[in-house]
């Protein structure tokens, strides 16, 4: 059996890469993709612990995280499309006023 430290380290590293991506990319879609990367990193930790403890609860939780991520992506991307239609830009540095 795989020692539990490896997937936990992988999860932490992927999460950190996601955080760096959110901070240094200024495009709304890129930031959204890095948020999805962070969710994925948490899922890896859940699956590893579920296997290690022999309980199914971790996997059911990953099921729910995947579902909620799908719903969140649908609404978030439609928000981005709506913002792009109104403002013409999706760089978050340009979106600093509440009115045009």
């Amino acid at each position: 059996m795989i020692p539990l430290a490896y997937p936990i380290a992988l999860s932490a590293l992927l999460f950190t890469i996601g955080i760096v991506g959110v901070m240094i990319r200024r495009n709304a879609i890129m930031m959204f993709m890095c948020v999805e990367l962070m969710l994925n990193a948490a899922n890896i930790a859940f699956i590893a612990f579920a296997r290690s403890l022999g309980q199914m609860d971790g996997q059911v939780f990953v099921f729910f995280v995947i579902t909620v991520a799908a719903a969140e992506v649908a609404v978030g991307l439609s928000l981005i499309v709506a913002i792009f239609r109104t403002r013409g830009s999706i760089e978050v540095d340009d979106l600093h006023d509440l009115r045009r």
Partner: protein
Amino acid sequence: MNVETLLSVLVGGVALAAAIAMVVTRNMVHSALFMVVVFLATAVLYLVYQAPLIAMLQITVYAGGIMVLFLFVIMLIGAEKMAHTENLRWQRPLAFGLTGTLLVETIYVAAAQLKLPDPVAVSPDFGGPKAVGLVLFSQYLLPFELTSILLLVAMMGAVVLTIRREKTR
């Protein structure tokens, strides 16, 4: 080091490399494709950790649904042709510094205080559809129904946000 550990390390390395490439590359379509590689590598990792149903769900929903949605939106708004804007000069070093601090803190806390449990032996159909279904529809039935309502609301929200009304004459 047995085959399972070696495989998980290799797949984890692929996921890490693809994640770094996704964050660094300037072309957004390339980023989306690297993201697909990350999701596929994660699905293989789930298979190694005896979660076959979740692995197939990951490929179907994440790589096959969510990333396709991303690519649709990227091409819909023409983002692959967008000019790359420069960010503020102090943002990048600050981001790396803060994230490095976070990583060092996490490693320190984990190494000092984390007591990882020893893996227990599991039956061969651990993680199969029957096992997931038994827990999902008995113990987690309420969250399951709530997620169905959540998906309905998300669908309605996506339509409401992007619908263009015809101007009546």
